[in-house]
């Protein structure tokens, strides 16, 4: 294989993995809990800006990541308690309220940091030789971290008691309550984890992408496309969706153009909504 193909394949894998990481949060919040959180992308933005703060305060990147998780988890808890729970039975109002929240966060960030792009240095610089091509080390490290993280998550979800209890609470809340599981608390914790995960994604991606107040919207849309294609409520659906959307985007973007890549993904999603609205591997 020539180096161009290898690079393309690496880009493809990178893209699919990043998409999986980003869509995971919405997969939990919307796919599992059924909450349409229009501010999901803003949690990613907050994570990225946590790294900006860390950089300005001149502390290690590790603290930045911690800050990202802390901020998004706290905000997530407040949102779940005061916005999501009261509006549980009115999904359109949840959509509106979270859209309002996303507006607030974007304007807030713009007010504090301004509209310009922020620059975060990569913690692992340079490139590594892999499969006889040079590929940025940070990306490789990130890909490895994501694979490990998702594996651990998958195993946890499948085999741990907490994971089983969560699965049970979501699938059959009445029976779960009868057994003594506090379903409300489960839902709250799952929501907080879902948004914190997206915040973590933001912190990890910050050195690689454009960091600006509006960055979250593209990630919200990307996650949405993944869920539409892959289906709601399962990890395998998430991978399937990320695989298809990620590959399509990378391949079309490379062959033609970035914009055509986006157009291809959008057309694919509309097609799925039209013909197969539950996605490929729906659990609902």
């Amino acid at each position, binding site marked *: 294989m020539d180096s161009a193909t290898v690079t393309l394949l690496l880009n493809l894998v990178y893209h699919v993995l990043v998409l999986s990481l980003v869509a995971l949060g919405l997969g939990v919040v*919307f796919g599992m809990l059924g909450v*349409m959180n*229009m501010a999901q992308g803003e949690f990613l933005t907050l994570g990225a800006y946590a790294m900006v703060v860390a950089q300005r305060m001149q502390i290690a990147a590790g603290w930045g990541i911690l800050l990202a998780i802390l901020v998004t988890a706290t905000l997530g808890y407040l949102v779940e308690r005061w916005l999501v729970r009261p509006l549980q039975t009115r*999904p*359109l*109002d949840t*959509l*509106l*309220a979270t*859209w*309002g*929240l996303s*507006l*607030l966060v974007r*304007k*807030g960030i*713009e*007010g504090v940091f301004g509209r310009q792009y922020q620059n975060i240095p990569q913690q692992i610089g340079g490139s590594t030789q892999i499969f006889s091509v040079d590929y940025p080390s940070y990306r490789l490290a990130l890909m490895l971290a994501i694979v490990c993280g998702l594996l651990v998550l998958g195993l946890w979800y499948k085999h741990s008691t907490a994971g089983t209890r969560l699965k049970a609470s979501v699938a059959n809340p009445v029976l779960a309550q009868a057994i003594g599981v506090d379903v409300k608390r489960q839902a709250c914790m799952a929501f907080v984890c879902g948004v914190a995960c997206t915040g973590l994604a933001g912190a990890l991606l910050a050195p690689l992408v454009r960091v600006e107040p*509006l960055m979250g*919207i*593209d990630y*919200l*849309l990307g996650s*949405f*496309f993944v869920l*539409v294609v892959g289906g709601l409520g399962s990890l395998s659906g998430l991978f399937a969706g990320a695989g298809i959307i990620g590959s399509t985007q990378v391949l079309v973007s490379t062959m033609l*153009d*970035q*914009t055509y890549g*986006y*157009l291809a993904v*959008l057309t694919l*999603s*509309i*097609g799925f*909504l*039209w*013909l*197969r*609205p539950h996605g490929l591997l729906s659990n609902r």
Partner: protein
Amino acid sequence: MAYFQTAKQVASLLTLAACLVAVPFVTNDYRAYQLGTYLLYGVVAQGVALVWGRLGFLPLGQALFFGLGAYFAGLLLIHAQDNALLYLLLPLSILVPALLAYLVARLVFAGQYISGPNFSLITLALTMLGAQLANQFTGLTGGFNGLANIPQLGDLDRYSSMYFLIVALVLLSTALLSWLYQTPLGTLWLAISQNENRLQFFGFATDRLKAGAFALSAALAGSAGFLYAAQQGLVTPQAIGFQLSAELVIWTAVGGRFGPYGALLGAVGIGLLSSDLREIWVHWEVLVALLFIAVVLYFPGGIAHLLLNAYQFINRRSSTHVPAYAVAPKTPDLRAPPIQSYGRDSGPVHLRFDNVSVQRNEVSILNSLSLAVEHAGVYCLIGPNGAGKTSSFNVLTGRLARTSGDIFLGSQRVTGHRADFMARAGVGRKFQIPSVFGGLSVTDNLRIALWSNRAQARQLLESTTRQWRTDILDFLENTFTFLADQADKPAGELSQGQRQMLELSMTLLAEPRLLLLDEPCAGLSTVETQQQIEVIVQAVSRLGSTALVIEHDMAAVQRLSNEVFVLHQGQLLANGTLKQMQDSPLVQAVYAGGQK
């Protein structure tokens, strides 16, 4: 009533016209020019209000259609300077956005029978794509710097006379929307936002209604874009992208999404204010975001609704949340035209289930269910919980997909058709938990049922359609007196029992040839149950229809019908007269549970 309504509308419109026309004389041409731009945004916002406030789904990318109209018109105006024939293509700047909107809405709404977040997110994605394309194709659109040097439209000087053309568009759009809102179509739109599922069971293809309304909103946006290009002389990707789309939603929400005046108020009020304050006070936009959240949570009607409340309070009238038209003075009756027979056979209906099975994840909901109804009359469907009674209704009306088997209505194979198709084929359904249009008055609920399978498209735009009456309606109002006494009460404020009776009335008014009634007496007192049963028996015999009634109360079963179908574990266990069922050891075993 038509006159009263029109008088109020005309008065409002004239007031608006007077205010707007006065502006360049009261202030100056420059202020009018500024206002003109925001009036155009206002027209787009009116489209957002139509789709969101009236029909209940949220478009997050409306600027796409505005921008499309603007770019189209801009390009045509530039090139028409060399080739005058291109002027003829200008209507495309209105038609293309409308067609695109219709197509997208039909595709997105096709797969699911109620709106969800999908539509909002797809429109968001489209506006992002639009901005990307506008930035990218520099040759066509001028890229980031935009399409410049657009000439003005004809002789209209963009800093003076153009303003009046804009005002004309605003008045046209406001008049059109105000008129539409108070037609029967406007009531149907409102019904969609309240209970879309129910409306489908009256034979209305709600996905097409939604797509049509969305197309109208896109046409309005496109027209505004057209004039924008001529007025500004420059169209940048800002006109098609996310920022403007988001602002449109905010303006509509804060101004008031339930009517065209509110949307205008929002765009002009908040929009103009923002453009001045944005530079001065850096936290203005955060305040606006907070205002938006407050409106969504506490004042869904926006400023317009608050002003209306204040006005009515001053005039000491009670304010209700039910929007639009005033109470109608008594009008002469109009006999409704007959039911449209969309390819139906005439005569009594033959219903046949042929080995219908429904399998979900290893569970058999219906297990080779076969039953046949040959003659008109009332039949009862009984059986233990989980026997498949409601599921059989669901599979017949397209709410449950069958795994195998077929269903026939007369000679027509009707397996797998959608709910609205089945309703148009003459199948009426009443739900176990009464499902009505809570925010509409009792009268409007009944009217919608009357229009079912009767009103043609043209008639939905005529106000005389509201005056239709039928014999069945007279009969129902005599029995259920509250239908006339509490005609203007919102259906959501009726008691549970009254809602049951209202829903039964609505189902009967559509004069279906096959009636599916799911526990019509649930929650009714003894007296009310008697009334309900009487109405069912009499109405069914008058209409010559067939009714299938799911019931648990054996006393009710006895009075309703002589023929009974017993379902058990998704199959037909036995059928015959009630007496035969009572004497059958097979049936008793299922009920008395002794020998299981």
